C-alpha cells in the first residue's frame, strides 16, 4: 500500500508544491521573479516560500530580459532555474532570451549545453484586464524548435508536469491558465510522482467526436461534452497538455476512433496551436475523417476590457456544443 495520499488542493497550491518539493530536492535550484517576496509573485504562487527558500529566491527589478537571461545563465552553470514572468503578455519583452538564447543554445553548441530552465507564466483570460494582460501566445513558442511548451489544465498535471520540467535538461515555457489557479483537484503528495512532458491526457472517453482542447478550454470542452451527451453525441476530450513537442499518437488514435475532430484553443486561430493540430489531422488522418476538422478560438481582435465584449471574444461552452451538433450527420426523418 502506498504511503502517499491524494488530497484536494488548488491549481495554485499544486504549482507551489512542485516548486517547494524541487527546491528541497535540488539545492542548486533558484527562482527569479517580480514581487516574489513578500507578495508571493504573480497570482500568489510563491506565498510562504520566502521564509523557507529566501536565499535562493531573487526578488527582481522590473527587468524581464534580465530575469530570463540571468535564469538561463544560472541554468547553464547550475540550476535548475525558474524565471517567473508576471503575465505571459510580458514575454514580448524577453523574447530574445527565450527564442534566440535559451531555445537554441544546446543546438548552437553542438549539444554541449544543458538548459534546465523553466519560464513560468500565467496565461489567458482573467477579468477586464484587456489587451495586454489576457493573451494566449503559446503558439509563438510552439513554433520554436528547442523549447518545450507546457500548458496543464488540472492541479495534478500542473504539479507533475512542472516537476518534470524542473528535472529535465531542456528549456520549458510553462503556461498556467490564470482562471485555473483557484480550481481544485485531487493531487498526490508523492514528491517523486512526475507527469511526463509530451504526453497527452484522455480527459473524457467518447466515440462520436474528438474534441482536442488546450489549457482553460479543456474544462469548457468537458462541460460541452456533457451537454452533447444529452443530445446523444458521445464526445471524447483530449488534452495535449504539452503543446510542443506534441503527442500526435494520442490525438491521431482518438480521431481514428471517432472519425470527427474539433480543436479548441483560447488563442486567436490564425497560426495557432489549434491550426497546427487541425492541419496535421487533415494531412495525416484524412482517411479516418468523416467530415472536415473544425476549429474554435478567440475572435481575431485585441482583448476588450468591457465584460460583454470580453465574454464574446472567447470560445464558449455553447459554441462548442453548437459546433459539435453541426458536425454530426443529420438524422434522417423516421
Amino acid at each position, binding site marked *: 500500500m502506498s504511503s502517499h495520499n491524494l488530497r484536494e488542493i488548488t491549481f495554485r497550491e499544486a504549482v507551489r508544491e512542485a516548486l517547494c518539493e524541487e527546491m528541497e530536492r535540488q539545492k542548486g535550484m533558484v527562482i527569479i521573479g517580480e514581487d516574489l517576496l513578500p507578495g508571493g509573485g504573480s497570482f500568489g504562487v510563491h506565498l510562504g516560500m520566502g521564509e523557507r527558500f529566501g536565499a535562493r529566491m531573487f526578488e527582481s527589478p522590473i*527587468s524581464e530580459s*534580465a530575469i530570463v*537571461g540571468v535564469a538561463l545563465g544560472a541554468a547553464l552553470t547550475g540550476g535548475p532555474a525558474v524565471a517567473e514572468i508576471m503575465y505571459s503578455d510580458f514575454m514580448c519583452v524577453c523574447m530574445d532570451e527565450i527564442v534566440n538564447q535559451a531555445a537554441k543554445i544546446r543546438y548552437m553548441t553542438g549539444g554541449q549545453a544543458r538548459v534546465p530552465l523553466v519560464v513560468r507564466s500565467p496565461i489567458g483570460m482573467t477579468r477586464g484586464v484587456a489587451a495586454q494582460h489576457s493573451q494566449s501566445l503559446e503558439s509563438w513558442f510552439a513554433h520554436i524548435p528547442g523549447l*518545450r511548451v507546457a500548458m496543464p489544465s488540472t492541479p495534478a498535471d500542473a504539479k507533475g508536469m512542472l516537476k518534470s520540467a524542473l528535472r529535465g535538461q531542456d528549456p520549458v515555457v510553462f503556461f498556467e491558465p490564470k482562471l485555473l489557479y483557484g480550481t481544485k483537484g485531487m493531487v498526490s503528495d508523492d514528491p517523486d510522482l512526475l507527469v511526463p512532458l509530451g504526453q497527452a491526457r484522455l480527459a473524457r472517453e467518447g466515440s462520436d467526436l474528438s474534441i482536442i482542447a488546450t489549457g482553460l478550454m479543456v474544462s469548457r470542452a468537458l462541460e460541452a461534452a456533457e451537454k452533447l451527451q444529452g443530445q446523444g453525441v458521445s464526445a471524447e476530450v483530449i488534452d495535449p497538455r504539452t503543446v510542443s513537442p506534441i503527442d500526435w499518437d494520442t490525438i491521431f488514435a482518438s480521431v481514428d476512433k471517432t472519425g470527427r475532430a474539433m480543436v479548441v484553443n483560447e488563442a486567436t486561430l490564425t497560426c495557432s496551436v489549434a491550426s497546427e493540430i487541425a492541419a496535421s489531422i487533415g494531412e495525416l488522418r484524412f482517411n479516418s475523417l468523416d467530415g472536415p476538422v473544425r476549429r474554435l478560438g478567440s475572435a481575431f481582435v485585441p482583448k476588450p476590457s468591457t465584460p460583454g465584449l470580453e465574454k464574446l471574444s472567447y470560445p464558449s461552452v455553447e459554441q462548442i456544443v453548437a459546433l459539435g451538433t453541426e458536425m454530426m450527420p443529420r438524422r434522417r426523418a423516421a
Partner: protein
Amino acid sequence: MSRITWTPEQLRGFWRDMHRIRAFERAAIYQSSLGKIYGALHSYEGQESCAIGVSAALQRGDYVASTHRGHGHCIAVGARMDRMMAELFGRIDGYCKGKGGSLHIADVGAGMLGANGIVGAGYAIAAGAALSAKVSGNGRVSVVFFGDGAVTRGTFHEVMNMASLWKLPLVLVCENNGLAQYVPTAETMVFENVSSLAQGYKMPGVAVDGNDIRAVHEAALAAVDRARQAQGPTLLELHTQRYHGHSSGDPQVYRSKAEVEALRLATDPIVRLENELVAAGLLADREALLAQIDAEVAQAVAFAEASAYPADEELSTDVYA
C-alpha cells in the same frame, strides 16, 4: 605606479598569447578568402590585449560570455585552435559540430559560455553564471565581454542594476573600439565614456588604455578580486580598436586603408609589448616562438580540413536533451 611585480615569463606569455590570437584570426580570414569557411567572420585583430589581459586574471572554473567577435576570448580561456578552426570550417570535430560556426563558438566545459549572434545578449547570461556561483558559494567569477555598440542595449542597463543590487561576482568588460558596426560610437551614444555609467549603478567604473596589456591585466585583477571577495561587480572600459571591418563582408566605406594603417602604427598592442621585450633583451627567441605559433595554426587548419562534415543525421540531434 603598478602594484604588480611583472615577471619576464608573464610578459612573454602575454606576447605569445596575443600572437596566437592574431595568427588564428589571420589564418581564418585567409581560409575564408579561399572559400574554406562558409559563414561570416568578425576579426578580433587589434583587440588581443583585451582578451589576454582579462583572461589572465581568471582561474579555472570561471565563466566568460562573449560576443560576435568571440574567437579571441575563446583562445584566451584555453580553447583548442584545431577544434575552433574545425568549427569555422563547419566540421564535425568543431566545438559545436559545425552547428554554431564562428558566431556561436563555445567551450562550455571550460566556462566559455559562447560567442553570441545577438549584440547585448551576453550580460544576463554571464550574470546568471555569477548568480549560480554566488548561490553555490564556489567562489567562481563571471566575465562578460561586449563592445561599445552593445552599451545602448536595454539589457546593459537591466544587468548593471541587477548585478549591483544582488552583488553578483561579475566583471563587465567593454571593449570600446569606437565603432558600432559601421558608425562611430560618438554618433550613437550621448555619454562621454562608458565607464562613467558605473557611478549611477554604484559600482566601480575603470577606464584604461586597452593597448597597454599591463594596464588591462591590472584593472582586471582588481575587478576579479573584488568579485571573488563577494564585493560585487565592476565595469571595465578598455579603449581599443579593430583593424578589420565589422565582419568579413564589411567594405569599410567609413574609413580609408590609410587610416587603418595609421591606426595600426599608432596603437598595436602586440608591437607595443614586443618593442619593450626586445629592448629588454627578453625576446631573443622571437622567431622560434613565432614559428611555433605558425605551426600550431597550420596544424589547426590541417585538422579542420581533415575533419568530416557532419552526417545528415546531425541535422536533428541536439535540439532536445
